[in-house]
């Protein structure tokens, strides 16, 4: 099968920090690919480079035949994304969020209407389409984001820790949608997670990144064999060590705390 994502010698340096250090990997078309690593390993930075939000310091990316730096818009049409943090407009309804997305991606009105209905039904939110998103639970927001990410029929769907903080029921449902969509539309799924069991169950192939470098890749069984462990969690700990990674509290964390104080924590 052909590769839909090809990454060669990709590096991203911030002022005093090498976040991504000369990594190379491929993702095959139609594959469900797990991208694992401890906090601060470089996962989100890599996703940002793949999705045109950050430009690489050096190295090559090819995504669906396009280069994110020079052909940003072609790349943007090729993928959908569910971010680590919710990226919905709370003051709009679910339907309006979808409509907004459809217009940004230039879907003609008829197709837009059809897609919104189809996808909101798919993630079981059609009945709640006219509720403001701020009244949604965390799980509903995630489902809505998945529906939105799929709306412009992307070839690749990126999911950055999509199941963080979700209960097992919602998690299961979410993966059911994704698996279904992967089978029926052949969409490639690229996801990160901290739940090893989730990676083991869903990913056809896995790459593990630590300190900005890819330290292992292959199927879940390959990784277990390589480390002589019986579970992916143990294999992961064997590969990345069991030191706790300290991440500096970002301004985002601070703002969240502030917001919680003001609004009584809706997220």
């Amino acid at each position, binding site marked *: 099968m052909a590769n839909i994502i090809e990454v060669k010698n990709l590096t991203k340096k911030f002022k005093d920090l090498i976040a991504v250090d000369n990594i190379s990997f491929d993702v095959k078309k139609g594959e469900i690919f797990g991208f694992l690593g401890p906090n601060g390993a470089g996962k989100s930075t890599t996703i*940002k480079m793949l*999705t*045109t*939000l*950050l430009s690489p310091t050096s190295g090559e990316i090819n995504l669906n035949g396009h280069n994110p730096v020079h052909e*940003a*818009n*072609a790349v*943007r*049409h090729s*993928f959908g*994304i569910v*971010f680590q*943090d*919710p*990226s*919905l*407009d*709370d*003051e*709009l309804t679910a339907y*309006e969020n979808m*409509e*907004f*997305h459809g*217009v*940004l*991606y*230039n879907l003609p009105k008829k197709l837009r209407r059809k897609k919104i209905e189809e996808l909101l039904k798919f993630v079981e939110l059609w009945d709640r389409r006219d509720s*403001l998103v701020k009244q949604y639970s965390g799980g509903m927001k995630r489902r809505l984001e998945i529906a*939105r990410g799929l709306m412009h029929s992307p070839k690749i769907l990126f999911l950055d820790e999509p199941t963080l903080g979700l209960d097992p029921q919602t998690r299961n449902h979410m993966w059911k949608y994704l698996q279904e969509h992967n089978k029926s539309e052949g969409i490639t799924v690229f996801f990160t997670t901290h739940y090893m069991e989730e990676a083991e169950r869903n990913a056809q192939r896995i790459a593990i990144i630590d300190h900005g470098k890819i330290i292992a890749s292959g199927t879940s069984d390959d990784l277990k064999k390589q480390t002589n462990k019986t579970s992916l969690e143990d294999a992961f700990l064997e590969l990345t060590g069991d030191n706790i990674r300290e991440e500096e509290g970002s*301004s*985002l964390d*601070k*703002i*969240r705390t*502030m*917001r919680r104080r003001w609004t009584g924590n809706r997220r």
Partner: protein
Amino acid sequence: MKTIYILWLRQLKRYYRSKSRMIGSLAQPLLFLVSLGYGFGHVYQQAGQGSYMNFLAPGIIAMSIIFSAIFMGMEIIWDRQFGFLKETLVAPVSRLNIMIGRTLGGATVATMQGIIVFFVSMLAGFTPYSWAMVPFAFLVMILVAIMFTALGTMVASFIDDMHGFQMIMNFLVMPLFFMSGALFPLEGVPPVIATIARFDPLSYGVDAFRTLLINTSHFGIGLDILVLSVITFVFLTLGGYFFSKIQI
């Protein structure tokens, strides 16, 4: 075009839905109008200057516009913190269009605030000298609103949390407002104040409102419109440039 429209529409919907913000942003101008307008009215009249309420109202209209416009522009900080900005930035749309749509949306809201304050001040005793000039005053309101929304966008591009917002309010917006002659006549002030006011773009907005609403002018309407247009263009260009440089 459709992109600009949907971004514009989004700002309007958000404004319309947050009633508390709408009321909150009217409370402050109203307080100024009532306390200063009635408080100084008598002294002002004794000094032979006529009605202070009439003099003050255009200044308070300018104040409500600059406050809401800067706030609308700086809303990008919220969108950035709560993720929605990412949704627009990964979409196949040019950053310039995103910036234009947001700015027009913010400016529309700020203009509406200005118009509401105009009518509220009429309740407080303000009377425009000629109704024929009022539509022109509304047009200048749009210009002032676009100018400060673009400034807000520009400033927001440098700042990544809400602490910065307070800084901007205290060290940029407040001085712009208080030094603009919104509250006092620029005739006869000490030269330092007069010079500062001359470099404050809001002064020209206030002056244009006074010319059109109460037929008193300090700089002259021609200079007002010229300065406002040039500065608006500069802020829009810079705002667009810095917005395109935002990295998440």
